[in-house]
């Protein structure tokens, strides 16, 4: 008789979570810890850790909340990050993005509003006002 498999092949993945590339989720994902999404998610995502939306992933939701957020896949919905947001090459994002910092790499496609606070460089009057507020919208 085949021996039942035990559940402790690699125990040290506390807090790690991954939605694999063939996975499709319809519903809400929330919690603590980091999350990597490679598959399709239809619904809201709210994690307290870092969220990575990998290449090939596709998310359609109302709000995506995380600390640091890296997007290399497709995302439709509002992004609300307490940390930095990176739109990597190949990303396709439609929706408003808010983060402590936002980086859009070359090759990323973005349509929506950016909302982030940043320090203006001195030549733009940043010497007197240290906090600036950017609202940019791009459409491609």
């Amino acid at each position: 008789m085949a021996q039942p498999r035990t559940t402790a092949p690699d125990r040290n993945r506390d807090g790690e979570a991954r939605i694999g590339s063939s996975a499709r989720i319809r519903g809400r994902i929330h919690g603590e810890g980091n999350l990597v999404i490679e598959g399709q998610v239809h619904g809201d995502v709210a994690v307290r850790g870092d969220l990575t939306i990998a290449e090939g992933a596709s998310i359609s939701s109302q709000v995506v909340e995380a600390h640091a957020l890296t997007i290399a896949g497709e995302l439709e919905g509002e992004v609300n990050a307490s940390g930095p947001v990176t739109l990597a090459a190949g990303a396709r994002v439609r929706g408003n993005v808010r983060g402590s910092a936002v980086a859009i790499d070359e090759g990323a496609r973005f349509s929506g509003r950016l909302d982030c606070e940043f320090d203006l460089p001195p030549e733009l009057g940043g010497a007197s006002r240290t906090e600036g507020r950017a609202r940019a919208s791009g459409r491609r």
Partner: protein
Amino acid sequence: MASTVIGAGITIEGEIATDEDVVVAGTVRGKLSAKEAVTIEHGATVEADVTGGSLVVAGSLTGNVTATERVDLQSGARVIGNVKAARVTIADGAQFKGNVDMDV
């Protein structure tokens, strides 16, 4: 390595469907269907109907289970629901309430 891992702090409320393996260490409410192995780890809470190729439960599961190959309820597992699979094992120390159907 499992292709989908629902970490200990993560909760998914809704429907999960995948062709690959799933490991649940967190919470799933709704429905979970996989074509390959499904592992519900110690400390995980699943309130969902689960289908998969094979299923290993060491955590808490409320819902009906259908596996094409086998279901193993390990010590510490707490399962309420019906189990349907050709091969079923229930380890000493597993809690189980429900029907077993091995006539697939």
